[in-house]
């Protein structure tokens, strides 16, 4: 049993990291009061930009550098694409769920279009980043073997972002403003905060994070981009609810999803799972997601003004 978990851990972390960073993006957006169903689509954009960067720049500058450049460009692309959602939901009083759905559909179609027309294939295969062991620390019992061996550098990058995000949201004036816009925008407005500007910041940050998540997925676990991120964006959304809109709880929730997805993906190769019917393994992550939502939705700590349009009162 323990052996199996140790074998699964590097893969589970490989799935967790893209879900985690995307969920953190969702956190920024939802804490500011904007629901972002479009995370999946923003991830797809990021996965494409990241993949194409490795595909074209890899031979020029080496795969590792190209991957980092791709990650940077993917964050930029995700940010730009999320402007569509910000504009629709902050300025135009659009239904945020529909606008997000439009972004999901548009991202998939657009990426495949560009990919087929300009790269010549709908499925770009890229070399994955190399896994590294953390020197010295990898010898720590238990966690050394689980989380400090065979790690991607991007994992550590995302963990740093997690800590920074927690600090920014919970401990800085910007975080306070962000939260106030999500809880009670009228009060925030009365206190002289520009609700629209804060919400733009929230949505654009979510775009950057989801773009990053998509790129990481492509250059690590997936190794390809084909206009889909296998529903990870929606798992991120579920992780956000499961994690009750708190950064470290989201880490726990997404790690759980990471293990669940890994069970579905690689468990057929592990002898311990040989007796489990394949259907049960394949649907496991989706069923546990729903069960997790059942447990955590009733006592939901969702930002109170989430999904509600804020309109400035004209005097």
């Amino acid at each position, binding site marked *: 049993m323990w052996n199996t978990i140790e074998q699964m851990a590097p893969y589970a972390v490989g799935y967790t990291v893209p879900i985690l960073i995307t969920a953190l993006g969702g956190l920024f957006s939802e804490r500011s009061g904007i629901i972002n169903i479009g995370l999946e689509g923003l991830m797809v954009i990021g996965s494409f930009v990241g993949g194409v960067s490795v595909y074209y720049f890899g031979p020029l500058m080496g795969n590792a550098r190209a991957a980092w450049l791709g990650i940077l460009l993917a964050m930029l692309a995700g940010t730009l694409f999320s402007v569509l959602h910000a504009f629709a939901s902050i300025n135009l009083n659009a239904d945020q769920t*529909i606008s997000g759905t439009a972004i999901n*559909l548009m991202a998939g179609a657009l990426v495949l*279009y560009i990919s087929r027309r300009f790269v010549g294939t709908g499925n770009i295969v890229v070399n994955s980043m190399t896994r590294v062991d953390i020197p010295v620390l990898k010898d720590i019992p238990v966690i050394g073997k689980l989380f400090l061996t065979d790690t991607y550098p991007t994992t550590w990058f995302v963990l740093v972002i997690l800590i920074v995000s927690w600090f920014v949201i919970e401990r800085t004036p910007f975080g306070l403003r962000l939260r106030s816009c999500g809880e009670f925008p009228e009060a925030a407005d009365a206190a002289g905060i520009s609700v629209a500007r804060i919400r733009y910041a929230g949505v654009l940050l979510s775009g950057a994070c989801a773009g990053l998540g998509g790129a990481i997925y492509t250059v690590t676990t997936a190794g390809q981009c084909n206009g889909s991120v296998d529903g990870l964006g929606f798992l991120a959304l579920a992780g956000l609810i499961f994690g009750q809109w708190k950064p470290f709880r989201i880490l726990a929730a997404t790690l759980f999803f990471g293990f669940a997805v890994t069970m579905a993906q690689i468990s057929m190769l592990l002898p311990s799972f040989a007796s489990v019917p394949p259907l049960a393994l*394949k*649907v496991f992550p*989706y*069923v546990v997601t729903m069960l997790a*939502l059942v447990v955590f939705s009733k006592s939901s700590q969702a930002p109170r003004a989430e999904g509600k349009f804020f309109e400035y009162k004209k005097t």
Partner: protein
Amino acid sequence: MKILVSVISILLGFVAGALLMLSSGANPLTGFSYLFQGGLKSVTRICNTIAYAVPLMLTGLSVTFAFKTGLFNIGAPGQMLIGGLLANVLALTAGLPRPLLLPLVIAASIVGGMVWAAVPGFLKARFNVNEVVSCIMMNWVAYWVVYIVISDHFKSTTIDTESQVIPAAASLKTEAITLLTKGSNLNLGIFIAIIATALVIFILNRTVLGYEMKAVGFNRFAAEYGGINVQKNAVLAMVISGALSGLAGLTFYCGYLSNMRIGVMPSQGFDGIAVALLANCAPVGVVFAAIFFAILQTGKGFMNAMMPIPPEIADTIIATVIYFAATSKLIEMNLDRIKKFFGRKRPSKSEGSGEHVEHH
């Protein structure tokens, strides 16, 4: 006004498509001409377009129905898959004569869609689970159920990714229609779509149930205060919505096609959202919106064959239309605002200001 907004959304979708074609060095006029030729060039093509529109009408109605109660049914693809799977399995195994088999197959698809939609509906009503996330999860569960059931039990002997072809007795295709339309895929599904449209209109406008559902959609707190059981309505709306998507699965997998493909999420489920939005959730509008999107979807293959434009252009146009339909309030709001602005200063110019917005 509402139709105007829909037309503007379509135009903006085509503008986006044209820009994309220009960026890949193709002439948009040629491209759109091939796109429409592909959907409408001959009797057979027109009938194929209508046959493709049938599942779109049903998923469009499905999304519309849930929307009226304030629920977003993005689970239509999964409901189609399960409806289609039950219908296919029954068609392959029952071995009954057509007059018995066909009604059973239809009923099976309805039950499949209902069950698949009842889950998110119940979770929403009972546990306040976000129906968008649970619907997406149900889509993936359906995807794997179909994948494994078909590859374990009903795999075609010739093509690994497809199920066995259903017997003609269980298909919605009839010889008469096929001959009449010169071998198109048009089938009895068109009548199912028409009946479903009429039924949806009837339920929404002429029954207590429809009244209650719309009341919940407008203002759930007011409805609750008025004595309407909001939770029961949520489940019921999803179940009816699921039945429509299940029928969409039937008309697609036992009508337009004669078997199922594994590893494919039916895009008609997602396009149903576009259909419903473009139609502004009016059932009759759904019929026209579905035919319009069907032209794009059936024409894209022809266009792709005639010039190097990837077929995803159609999906890009559809997604753009959804985006602008979602932001339709912009067009309406600005129209009002500009009218007022000009109205205050120069009352005589108030009509001219309308044009100003349309060009945005």
